[in-house]
Protein backbone atom coordinates (compact mmCIF):
# COMPACT_ATOMS: atom_id res chain seq x y z
CA UNK A 1 0.00 0.00 0.00
CA UNK A 2 2.97 2.24 0.30
CA UNK A 3 2.70 2.57 -3.47
CA UNK A 4 -0.56 4.40 -3.07
CA UNK A 5 1.09 6.71 -0.64
CA UNK A 6 3.85 7.22 -3.13
CA UNK A 7 1.29 8.38 -5.60
CA UNK A 8 -0.06 10.85 -3.14
CA UNK A 9 3.29 12.06 -2.04
CA UNK A 10 4.77 12.28 -5.49
CA UNK A 11 1.90 14.29 -6.82
CA UNK A 12 1.93 16.52 -3.82
CA UNK A 13 5.53 17.54 -4.05
CA UNK A 14 5.84 17.96 -7.78
CA UNK A 15 7.57 14.63 -7.97
CA UNK A 16 9.88 15.52 -5.14
CA UNK A 17 11.79 13.42 -2.73
CA UNK A 18 10.53 11.80 0.39
CA UNK A 19 10.53 8.35 1.86
CA UNK A 20 7.39 6.35 2.30
CA UNK A 21 9.10 3.10 3.13
CA UNK A 22 7.63 0.54 5.43
CA UNK A 23 4.04 1.45 4.85
CA UNK A 24 3.03 -1.81 3.26
CA UNK A 25 0.55 -2.47 6.02
CA UNK A 26 -1.03 0.92 5.82
CA UNK A 27 -4.34 -0.30 4.47
CA UNK A 28 -3.51 -3.94 4.03
CA UNK A 29 -6.56 -4.96 5.98
CA UNK A 30 -8.78 -3.05 3.61
CA UNK A 31 -10.46 -4.84 0.79
CA UNK A 32 -13.42 -4.15 -1.45
CA UNK A 33 -15.82 -1.53 -0.18
CA UNK A 34 -13.68 -0.26 2.67
CA UNK A 35 -10.65 0.05 0.43
CA UNK A 36 -12.71 1.99 -2.06
CA UNK A 37 -14.10 4.25 0.61
CA UNK A 38 -10.67 4.90 2.03
CA UNK A 39 -9.22 5.89 -1.33
CA UNK A 40 -12.25 7.42 -3.06
CA UNK A 41 -11.29 11.01 -2.15
CA UNK A 42 -7.93 10.45 -3.77
CA UNK A 43 -9.69 9.78 -7.06
CA UNK A 44 -12.01 12.77 -6.66
CA UNK A 45 -9.25 15.17 -5.75
CA UNK A 46 -6.82 13.87 -8.30
CA UNK A 47 -9.36 14.08 -11.08
CA UNK A 48 -10.22 17.65 -10.17
CA UNK A 49 -6.54 18.56 -10.05
CA UNK A 50 -5.81 17.08 -13.45
CA UNK A 51 -8.78 18.86 -15.01
CA UNK A 52 -7.50 22.24 -13.86
CA UNK A 53 -5.14 24.83 -15.25
CA UNK A 54 -5.54 23.90 -18.90
CA UNK A 55 -6.25 27.40 -20.21
CA UNK A 56 -5.49 31.00 -19.25
CA UNK A 57 -7.46 32.96 -21.86
CA UNK A 58 -10.22 32.13 -24.32
CA UNK A 59 -8.61 33.54 -27.44
CA UNK A 60 -7.68 31.13 -30.24
CA UNK A 61 -6.39 32.76 -33.40
CA UNK A 62 -8.06 31.91 -36.68
CA UNK A 63 -4.88 32.11 -38.73
CA UNK A 64 -2.06 33.60 -36.71
CA UNK A 65 0.32 31.24 -34.91
CA UNK A 66 0.13 31.31 -31.11
CA UNK A 67 2.31 29.49 -28.63
CA UNK A 68 2.57 28.97 -24.88
CA UNK A 69 4.90 26.93 -22.71
CA UNK A 70 4.77 26.98 -18.95
CA UNK A 71 4.40 25.26 -15.65
CA UNK A 72 0.92 24.61 -14.32
CA UNK A 73 0.47 24.19 -10.60
CA UNK A 74 -2.89 23.23 -9.20
CA UNK A 75 -4.06 22.75 -5.65
CA UNK A 76 -7.20 20.80 -4.80
CA UNK A 77 -8.83 21.80 -1.53
CA UNK A 78 -9.87 18.73 0.43
CA UNK A 79 -13.20 19.15 2.14
CA UNK A 80 -14.06 17.91 5.62
CA UNK A 81 -16.41 15.28 4.21
CA UNK A 82 -13.55 13.93 2.11
CA UNK A 83 -11.57 13.19 5.24
CA UNK A 84 -13.93 10.53 6.61
CA UNK A 85 -16.05 7.74 5.16
CA UNK A 86 -18.56 5.23 6.45
CA UNK A 87 -16.70 1.94 6.66
CA UNK A 88 -18.52 -1.36 6.77
CA UNK A 89 -18.10 -3.00 10.14
CA UNK A 90 -17.60 -6.73 10.52
CA UNK A 91 -20.11 -6.48 13.36
CA UNK A 92 -22.76 -5.03 11.06
CA UNK A 93 -23.60 -1.43 10.25
CA UNK A 94 -21.04 1.22 9.53
CA UNK A 95 -18.47 3.22 11.43
CA UNK A 96 -16.96 6.60 10.60
CA UNK A 97 -13.30 6.12 9.70
CA UNK A 98 -10.56 8.33 8.24
CA UNK A 99 -9.95 8.37 4.51
CA UNK A 100 -6.44 8.62 3.13
CA UNK A 101 -6.69 12.39 3.63
CA UNK A 102 -8.22 12.08 7.09
CA UNK A 103 -6.96 12.16 10.64
CA UNK A 104 -3.73 10.37 11.42
CA UNK A 105 -5.49 8.70 14.35
CA UNK A 106 -6.87 5.21 13.85
CA UNK A 107 -10.60 4.71 14.36
CA UNK A 108 -11.67 2.03 16.80
CA UNK A 109 -15.06 0.35 16.59
CA UNK A 110 -16.11 -1.62 19.64
CA UNK A 111 -17.92 -4.85 18.89
CA UNK A 112 -19.70 -7.32 21.15
CA UNK A 113 -18.02 -9.12 24.02
CA UNK A 114 -14.79 -7.17 24.08
CA UNK A 115 -14.13 -7.46 20.36
CA UNK A 116 -13.03 -4.36 18.51
CA UNK A 117 -11.86 -3.51 15.03
CA UNK A 118 -9.38 -0.86 13.94
CA UNK A 119 -9.25 1.36 10.89
CA UNK A 120 -6.03 3.06 9.74
CA UNK A 121 -5.44 6.77 9.90
CA UNK A 122 -4.75 9.06 6.97
CA UNK A 123 -2.20 11.73 6.20
CA UNK A 124 -4.29 14.66 7.46
CA UNK A 125 -4.10 16.84 4.37
CA UNK A 126 -6.32 19.76 3.50
CA UNK A 127 -4.68 20.41 0.15
CA UNK A 128 -3.26 18.31 -2.66
CA UNK A 129 -1.11 20.08 -5.25
CA UNK A 130 -0.07 18.87 -8.66
CA UNK A 131 2.35 20.44 -11.09
CA UNK A 132 3.01 19.63 -14.71
CA UNK A 133 4.57 21.40 -17.71
CA UNK A 134 2.29 22.31 -20.59
CA UNK A 135 2.68 23.42 -24.19
CA UNK A 136 -0.14 24.92 -26.26
CA UNK A 137 0.05 25.62 -29.97
CA UNK A 138 -2.73 27.20 -32.00
CA UNK A 139 -3.67 29.39 -34.89
CA UNK A 140 -4.90 27.02 -37.56
CA UNK A 141 -8.63 27.36 -38.34
CA UNK A 142 -9.14 28.78 -34.89
CA UNK A 143 -7.97 25.62 -33.22
CA UNK A 144 -5.42 25.05 -30.48
CA UNK A 145 -3.76 21.88 -29.24
CA UNK A 146 -2.33 21.51 -25.74
CA UNK A 147 -0.03 18.86 -24.43
CA UNK A 148 1.14 17.98 -20.93
CA UNK A 149 3.82 15.44 -20.29
CA UNK A 150 5.97 14.32 -17.44
CA UNK A 151 7.80 11.05 -16.86
CA UNK A 152 10.13 9.87 -14.17
CA UNK A 153 11.37 6.53 -12.89
CA UNK A 154 10.44 6.35 -9.22
CA UNK A 155 12.32 3.11 -8.67
CA UNK A 156 11.98 1.27 -5.38
CA UNK A 157 9.73 -1.37 -6.97
CA UNK A 158 7.29 1.35 -7.91
CA UNK A 159 8.15 1.83 -11.55
CA UNK A 160 7.53 4.62 -13.96
CA UNK A 161 5.43 7.66 -13.28
CA UNK A 162 3.87 9.00 -16.46
CA UNK A 163 1.70 12.08 -16.68
CA UNK A 164 0.33 12.58 -20.17
CA UNK A 165 -2.37 14.98 -21.22
CA UNK A 166 -3.76 16.50 -24.36
CA UNK A 167 -6.50 18.91 -25.23
CA UNK A 168 -8.10 20.64 -28.12
CA UNK A 169 -10.15 23.77 -28.26
CA UNK A 170 -11.83 25.66 -31.02
CA UNK A 171 -12.78 29.28 -31.25
CA UNK A 172 -16.50 29.92 -31.53
CA UNK A 173 -16.23 33.68 -31.49
CA UNK A 174 -14.34 33.64 -34.81
CA UNK A 175 -17.64 32.93 -36.52
CA UNK A 176 -19.28 36.02 -35.13
CA UNK A 177 -18.32 39.56 -35.96
CA UNK A 178 -18.16 42.11 -33.19
CA UNK A 179 -18.31 39.50 -30.49
CA UNK A 180 -17.46 41.42 -27.29
CA UNK A 181 -15.73 38.45 -25.68
CA UNK A 182 -13.77 35.45 -26.91
CA UNK A 183 -15.57 32.15 -26.69
CA UNK A 184 -14.12 28.68 -27.22
CA UNK A 185 -15.19 25.10 -26.75
CA UNK A 186 -12.59 22.70 -25.39
CA UNK A 187 -11.96 19.11 -24.47
CA UNK A 188 -9.03 18.02 -22.30
CA UNK A 189 -7.85 14.57 -21.34
CA UNK A 190 -5.09 13.65 -18.91
CA UNK A 191 -3.78 10.37 -17.61
CA UNK A 192 -1.59 9.57 -14.65
CA UNK A 193 0.05 6.16 -14.48
CA UNK A 194 2.20 4.92 -11.65
CA UNK A 195 3.79 1.60 -12.44
CA UNK A 196 1.25 -1.20 -12.40
CA UNK A 197 -0.49 0.17 -9.37
CA UNK A 198 -2.38 3.27 -10.37
CA UNK A 199 -3.94 4.30 -13.65
CA UNK A 200 -5.90 7.53 -13.35
CA UNK A 201 -7.64 9.42 -16.09
CA UNK A 202 -9.51 12.72 -16.11
CA UNK A 203 -11.49 14.40 -18.86
CA UNK A 204 -13.34 17.67 -19.07
CA UNK A 205 -15.41 19.35 -21.74
CA UNK A 206 -15.92 23.05 -21.28
CA UNK A 207 -17.10 26.32 -22.77
CA UNK A 208 -14.64 29.13 -22.17
CA UNK A 209 -15.08 32.89 -22.32
CA UNK A 210 -12.53 35.65 -21.91
CA UNK A 211 -11.81 39.31 -22.41
CA UNK A 212 -8.65 41.34 -22.23
CA UNK A 213 -8.52 44.63 -20.35
CA UNK A 214 -5.15 46.40 -20.70
CA UNK A 215 -2.52 43.87 -19.61
CA UNK A 216 -4.95 41.46 -18.04
CA UNK A 217 -6.96 38.67 -19.61
CA UNK A 218 -10.01 37.81 -17.56
CA UNK A 219 -11.44 34.39 -18.25
CA UNK A 220 -14.07 31.95 -17.07
CA UNK A 221 -15.60 28.66 -18.05
CA UNK A 222 -18.28 26.14 -17.33
CA UNK A 223 -17.49 22.51 -17.85
CA UNK A 224 -18.45 18.94 -17.13
CA UNK A 225 -15.76 16.63 -15.89
CA UNK A 226 -15.19 12.92 -15.48
CA UNK A 227 -12.43 10.97 -13.82
CA UNK A 228 -11.54 7.39 -13.01
CA UNK A 229 -8.77 5.78 -11.03
CA UNK A 230 -7.85 2.10 -11.27
CA UNK A 231 -5.98 0.83 -8.26
CA UNK A 232 -4.27 -2.49 -7.89
CA UNK A 233 -2.22 -3.70 -4.96
CA UNK A 234 -1.52 -6.74 -2.85
CA UNK A 235 -3.36 -6.85 0.44
CA UNK A 236 -1.20 -8.62 2.95
CA UNK A 237 -2.59 -10.47 5.90
CA UNK A 238 0.01 -12.22 7.98
CA UNK A 239 -0.14 -15.97 7.66
CA UNK A 240 -1.96 -15.83 4.35
CA UNK A 241 -0.91 -15.47 0.76
CA UNK A 242 -1.11 -11.90 -0.55
CA UNK A 243 -4.45 -11.15 -2.13
CA UNK A 244 -4.55 -9.00 -5.23
CA UNK A 245 -6.96 -6.15 -4.78
CA UNK A 246 -8.23 -4.32 -7.83
CA UNK A 247 -10.92 -1.75 -8.03
CA UNK A 248 -11.93 1.20 -10.09
CA UNK A 249 -12.82 4.45 -8.44
CA UNK A 250 -15.02 6.82 -10.34
CA UNK A 251 -14.60 10.46 -9.50
CA UNK A 252 -17.64 12.22 -8.14
CA UNK A 253 -16.75 15.41 -9.94
CA UNK A 254 -19.33 16.77 -12.32
CA UNK A 255 -20.15 20.39 -13.14
CA UNK A 256 -17.25 22.81 -12.90
CA UNK A 257 -17.10 26.62 -12.93
CA UNK A 258 -13.84 28.51 -13.47
CA UNK A 259 -12.88 32.15 -13.04
CA UNK A 260 -9.42 33.66 -13.32
CA UNK A 261 -7.08 36.14 -14.88
CA UNK A 262 -3.78 36.23 -16.72
CA UNK A 263 -1.24 39.00 -16.39
CA UNK A 264 0.58 39.70 -19.67
CA UNK A 265 4.09 40.92 -18.98
CA UNK A 266 5.34 40.93 -22.52
CA UNK A 267 6.07 37.31 -23.39
CA UNK A 268 5.79 36.27 -19.75
CA UNK A 269 2.39 35.05 -18.68
CA UNK A 270 1.26 34.72 -15.11
CA UNK A 271 -2.20 33.41 -14.41
CA UNK A 272 -4.37 32.33 -11.51
CA UNK A 273 -7.85 30.88 -11.38
CA UNK A 274 -10.29 29.23 -9.05
CA UNK A 275 -12.48 26.28 -9.89
CA UNK A 276 -15.71 25.47 -8.13
CA UNK A 277 -17.02 21.94 -8.44
CA UNK A 278 -17.35 18.80 -6.40
CA UNK A 279 -13.77 19.51 -5.40
CA UNK A 280 -12.60 23.12 -5.48
CA UNK A 281 -9.23 23.77 -7.06
CA UNK A 282 -7.02 26.79 -7.47
CA UNK A 283 -4.53 26.99 -10.27
CA UNK A 284 -1.39 29.01 -10.81
CA UNK A 285 0.56 29.15 -14.02
CA UNK A 286 3.73 30.76 -15.17
CA UNK A 287 4.97 30.59 -18.71
CA UNK A 288 6.19 32.10 -21.88
CA UNK A 289 3.94 32.80 -24.83
CA UNK A 290 3.34 34.89 -27.90
CA UNK A 291 0.84 35.39 -30.67
CA UNK A 292 -2.12 36.06 -28.41
CA UNK A 293 -3.57 39.36 -29.58
CA UNK A 294 -6.35 41.42 -28.16
CA UNK A 295 -9.96 40.43 -28.87
CA UNK A 296 -11.21 41.21 -32.33
CA UNK A 297 -7.84 40.64 -33.98
CA UNK A 298 -7.98 37.38 -35.85
Amino acid at each position, binding site marked *: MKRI*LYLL*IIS*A*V*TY*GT*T*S*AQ*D*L*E*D*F*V*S*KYTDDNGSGYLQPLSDVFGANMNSGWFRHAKVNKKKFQFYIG*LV*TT*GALIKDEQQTFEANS*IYGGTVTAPTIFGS*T*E*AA*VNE*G*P*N*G*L*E*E*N*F*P*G*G*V*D*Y*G*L*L*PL*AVPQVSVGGLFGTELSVRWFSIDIGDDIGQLDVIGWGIRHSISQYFKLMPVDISLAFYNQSFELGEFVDANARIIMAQAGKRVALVDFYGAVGYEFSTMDIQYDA*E*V*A*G*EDPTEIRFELEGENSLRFTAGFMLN*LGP*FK*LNADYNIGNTNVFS*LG*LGFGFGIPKPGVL
Partner: protein
Amino acid sequence: MKRSVLSVAVALLLIGTACTEEKDIDLVAALSNDYEFELNTTGTGDFNVEDVVTDNDLQDILNDLDGDLLAGFKKVSIEEIEVEIIDNQSSATSVEIGVVEFSLDGQSFIPLLSNQSFDIEDGVVSVTDLNRDGVIALRNRLADLLDNGNISEITARAIGSVNGSVNTRLRVSLISSVVGTQVVELPDL
Protein backbone atom coordinates in the same frame (compact mmCIF):
# COMPACT_ATOMS: atom_id res chain seq x y z
CA MET B 1 9.81 43.49 -13.53
CA LYS B 2 11.88 40.55 -14.69
CA ARG B 3 13.15 40.17 -11.19
CA SER B 4 9.67 39.90 -9.74
CA VAL B 5 8.64 37.41 -12.42
CA LEU B 6 11.64 35.32 -11.56
CA SER B 7 10.68 35.45 -7.91
CA VAL B 8 7.23 34.15 -8.73
CA ALA B 9 8.73 31.38 -10.86
CA VAL B 10 10.94 30.27 -8.03
CA ALA B 11 8.03 30.37 -5.63
CA LEU B 12 5.94 28.24 -7.97
CA LEU B 13 8.65 25.69 -8.36
CA LEU B 14 9.14 25.48 -4.64
CA ILE B 15 5.51 24.86 -3.83
CA GLY B 16 5.37 21.67 -1.85
CA THR B 17 8.99 20.81 -2.37
CA ALA B 18 10.86 22.96 0.08
CA CYS B 19 9.35 21.80 3.35
CA THR B 20 8.51 18.47 4.76
CA GLU B 21 7.08 17.52 8.10
CA GLU B 22 6.96 14.36 10.10
CA LYS B 23 3.56 12.96 10.96
CA ASP B 24 2.65 10.08 13.23
CA ILE B 25 0.22 7.98 11.26
CA ASP B 26 -1.67 5.09 12.82
CA LEU B 27 -1.18 1.98 10.73
CA VAL B 28 -3.19 -1.18 11.13
CA ALA B 29 -1.95 -4.67 10.39
CA ALA B 30 -4.34 -7.58 10.42
CA LEU B 31 -3.24 -10.87 11.92
CA SER B 32 -5.03 -14.15 11.37
CA ASN B 33 -4.09 -17.38 13.12
CA ASP B 34 -5.89 -20.58 12.24
CA TYR B 35 -5.90 -23.64 14.47
CA GLU B 36 -7.17 -26.97 13.19
CA PHE B 37 -8.18 -29.88 15.36
CA GLU B 38 -8.81 -33.42 14.23
CA LEU B 39 -12.01 -34.82 15.71
CA ASN B 40 -11.80 -38.39 14.54
CA THR B 41 -14.17 -40.43 16.62
CA THR B 42 -16.98 -42.83 15.95
CA GLY B 43 -20.26 -42.48 17.64
CA THR B 44 -20.15 -39.89 20.34
CA GLY B 45 -16.65 -39.06 21.41
CA ASP B 46 -14.97 -36.53 23.59
CA PHE B 47 -12.05 -34.48 22.32
CA ASN B 48 -9.35 -32.54 24.05
CA VAL B 49 -7.08 -31.17 21.40
CA GLU B 50 -4.37 -28.55 21.15
CA ASP B 51 -2.72 -26.73 18.29
CA VAL B 52 0.19 -24.37 18.54
CA VAL B 53 1.25 -21.48 16.35
CA THR B 54 4.94 -21.63 16.91
CA ASP B 55 7.90 -19.41 16.59
CA ASN B 56 8.25 -19.65 12.81
CA ASP B 57 4.67 -18.63 12.13
CA LEU B 58 4.84 -15.78 14.56
CA GLN B 59 8.12 -14.64 13.13
CA ASP B 60 6.35 -14.25 9.81
CA ILE B 61 3.81 -12.09 11.51
CA LEU B 62 6.45 -9.97 13.12
CA ASN B 63 8.25 -9.63 9.79
CA ASP B 64 5.04 -8.50 8.17
CA LEU B 65 4.71 -5.91 10.83
CA ASP B 66 8.06 -4.73 9.60
CA GLY B 67 9.55 -3.87 12.93
CA ASP B 68 8.72 -0.22 12.47
CA LEU B 69 5.12 -0.83 13.28
CA LEU B 70 6.01 -2.63 16.44
CA ALA B 71 8.43 0.11 17.31
CA GLY B 72 5.46 2.40 17.45
CA PHE B 73 3.14 -0.22 18.90
CA LYS B 74 -0.02 1.40 20.15
CA LYS B 75 -2.65 -1.25 20.77
CA VAL B 76 -3.89 -4.67 19.76
CA SER B 77 -7.46 -5.73 19.29
CA ILE B 78 -9.20 -9.08 19.02
CA GLU B 79 -11.50 -8.59 16.05
CA GLU B 80 -13.10 -11.97 15.58
CA ILE B 81 -13.12 -15.52 16.87
CA GLU B 82 -14.50 -17.98 14.37
CA VAL B 83 -15.24 -21.66 14.79
CA GLU B 84 -15.78 -23.76 11.70
CA ILE B 85 -16.60 -27.43 11.21
CA ILE B 86 -14.89 -28.59 8.04
CA ASP B 87 -14.43 -31.71 5.96
CA ASN B 88 -17.51 -33.30 7.36
CA GLN B 89 -17.83 -36.48 5.31
CA SER B 90 -19.69 -38.62 7.75
CA SER B 91 -22.64 -38.75 10.05
CA ALA B 92 -21.55 -36.08 12.45
CA THR B 93 -24.56 -34.07 13.42
CA SER B 94 -23.46 -31.87 16.28
CA VAL B 95 -20.47 -30.64 18.19
CA GLU B 96 -20.51 -29.72 21.84
CA ILE B 97 -17.71 -27.36 22.72
CA GLY B 98 -16.93 -27.24 26.37
CA VAL B 99 -14.27 -24.61 26.01
CA VAL B 100 -11.98 -22.96 23.46
CA GLU B 101 -9.07 -21.31 25.15
CA PHE B 102 -5.76 -19.73 24.29
CA SER B 103 -2.37 -19.58 25.92
CA LEU B 104 0.47 -17.21 25.06
CA ASP B 105 4.04 -18.27 25.56
CA GLY B 106 3.11 -21.11 27.88
CA GLN B 107 1.15 -18.99 30.29
CA SER B 108 -2.16 -20.12 31.68
CA PHE B 109 -5.07 -20.74 29.33
CA ILE B 110 -7.66 -18.03 28.87
CA PRO B 111 -11.15 -19.33 27.99
CA LEU B 112 -12.82 -17.43 25.16
CA LEU B 113 -15.74 -19.67 24.42
CA SER B 114 -17.64 -21.93 26.78
CA ASN B 115 -20.45 -24.44 26.51
CA GLN B 116 -21.52 -23.94 22.93
CA SER B 117 -23.49 -26.46 20.96
CA PHE B 118 -23.46 -26.45 17.19
CA ASP B 119 -25.67 -28.31 14.81
CA ILE B 120 -23.69 -29.20 11.74
CA GLU B 121 -25.66 -27.86 8.83
CA ASP B 122 -23.82 -25.27 6.86
CA GLY B 123 -20.47 -26.38 8.17
CA VAL B 124 -19.51 -22.90 9.29
CA VAL B 125 -20.34 -21.48 12.65
CA SER B 126 -19.58 -17.93 13.65
CA VAL B 127 -19.31 -17.41 17.33
CA THR B 128 -20.62 -14.31 18.97
CA ASP B 129 -21.22 -15.60 22.48
CA LEU B 130 -17.68 -15.02 23.55
CA ASN B 131 -16.40 -14.69 27.08
CA ARG B 132 -15.94 -10.93 27.36
CA ASP B 133 -13.50 -11.11 30.26
CA GLY B 134 -11.51 -13.73 28.36
CA VAL B 135 -11.34 -11.63 25.21
CA ILE B 136 -10.12 -8.62 27.17
CA ALA B 137 -7.60 -10.69 29.12
CA LEU B 138 -6.20 -12.21 25.92
CA ARG B 139 -6.02 -8.80 24.31
CA ASN B 140 -4.13 -7.35 27.26
CA ARG B 141 -1.75 -10.28 27.43
CA LEU B 142 -1.11 -10.02 23.69
CA ALA B 143 -0.45 -6.31 24.08
CA ASP B 144 2.06 -6.93 26.88
CA LEU B 145 3.98 -9.38 24.76
CA LEU B 146 3.87 -7.26 21.61
CA ASP B 147 4.99 -4.27 23.60
CA ASN B 148 8.09 -6.24 24.41
CA GLY B 149 8.39 -7.23 20.75
CA ASN B 150 8.45 -10.94 21.36
CA ILE B 151 5.93 -13.76 21.17
CA SER B 152 7.20 -17.27 20.71
CA GLU B 153 3.99 -19.24 20.57
CA ILE B 154 0.24 -19.10 20.76
CA THR B 155 -1.55 -22.29 21.79
CA ALA B 156 -5.21 -22.96 21.16
CA ARG B 157 -7.06 -25.76 22.96
CA ALA B 158 -10.54 -27.07 22.40
CA ILE B 159 -12.36 -29.46 24.70
CA GLY B 160 -15.74 -30.96 23.99
CA SER B 161 -17.49 -33.79 22.29
CA VAL B 162 -18.67 -34.61 18.81
CA ASN B 163 -21.49 -36.82 17.75
CA GLY B 164 -20.67 -39.38 15.05
CA SER B 165 -17.56 -37.90 13.52
CA VAL B 166 -15.12 -39.37 11.06
CA ASN B 167 -12.70 -37.10 9.18
CA THR B 168 -14.22 -34.09 10.84
CA ARG B 169 -12.06 -31.18 11.81
CA LEU B 170 -12.64 -28.17 13.94
CA ARG B 171 -11.01 -24.94 12.84
CA VAL B 172 -10.66 -22.06 15.24
CA SER B 173 -9.60 -18.75 13.79
CA LEU B 174 -8.24 -15.93 15.91
CA ILE B 175 -8.29 -12.66 14.00
CA SER B 176 -6.63 -9.70 15.59
CA SER B 177 -5.22 -6.40 14.45
CA VAL B 178 -2.31 -4.34 15.64
CA VAL B 179 -2.26 -0.56 15.58
CA GLY B 180 1.15 1.01 15.36
CA THR B 181 2.38 4.52 14.82
CA GLN B 182 4.59 5.14 11.83
CA VAL B 183 6.56 8.35 11.61
CA VAL B 184 6.21 9.41 7.98
CA GLU B 185 7.95 12.31 6.33
CA LEU B 186 5.36 14.07 4.22
CA PRO B 187 5.30 17.31 2.28
CA ASP B 188 4.34 20.20 4.50
CA LEU B 189 1.17 21.39 2.80
